[in-house]
């Protein structure tokens, strides 16, 4: 990975599906620049998309008065994505497991499960109001720098 790809990018967006597309496209571009291979890039962009949909749809409920705050950071060791909404918040430790047999045929409830499955680390923080999610993908060390 080149040092050029390191950096921090932050922006505030409206609670719309257009914002979801914008964040997803940014994740794909920055992930590519960070040197993620095709599979890892898919995992990161999907997790970022799911987290952004959660913030826009479940957190801010498409409310035009509420925004999402997004930060991408490439530290060289990690690709870090943070998103904060201004919604009511939720308890991530008490979500039903969508892969449990009794929940398999449910039409919803797989977003957080996918995020946790696709990323190396996921952290939640309650903001009162709002929820902040931090998604981390560890980057492969540079050859000769292990």
């Amino acid at each position, binding site marked *: 990975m080149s040092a050029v790809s390191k950096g921090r990018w932050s922006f505030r967006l409206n609670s719309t599906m257009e914002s979801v597309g914008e964040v997803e496209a940014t994740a794909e571009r920055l992930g590519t620049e960070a040197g993620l291979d095709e599979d890892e890039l898919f995992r990161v962009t999907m997790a970022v998309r799911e987290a952004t949909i959660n913030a826009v749809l479940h957190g801010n409920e498409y409310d035009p008065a509420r925004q999402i705050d997004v930060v991408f950071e490439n530290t060289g060791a990690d690709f870090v994505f943070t998103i904060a909404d201004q919604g009511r918040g939720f308890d991530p430790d008490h979500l039903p497991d969508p892969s449990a047999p009794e929940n398999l045929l449910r039409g919803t409830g*797989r977003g957080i499960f*996918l995020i946790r499955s696709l990323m190396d680390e996921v952290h939640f923080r309650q903001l009162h109001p709002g929820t902040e999610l931090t998604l981390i993908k560890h980057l492969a060390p540079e050859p000769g720098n292990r």
Partner: protein
Amino acid sequence: MALTIASREVDGVTVLDLSGRITLGEGSVQLRDAIRDLISKGQKRILLNLGEVNYIDSSGLGELVSAYTTSKNQGASLKLLKLTKKVHDLLQLTKLYTVFDIYDDEASAIASFK
């Protein structure tokens, strides 16, 4: 790329050839409407060809599940054909692989309805 759906009949089975993304706002509703339309017309054998579906999110996965349960509740049978690697991996990750009848080739899928 949004979702496109083409419909054809093969030996009494309605094959829906899907192409594009099945995501919130980009295909989930189209898929739901297509399945409801088939069910309302009394179609009992539905095969979803996902060979050209390059992306699906949690909403799209939920829509596949809803298509399956809607069909089953109406006495119809819905099966999947030709998963791309990404969709295959997601179905395994979510254990939905255990829910669906999935086929790699169309002839076998069509024959399975008989």
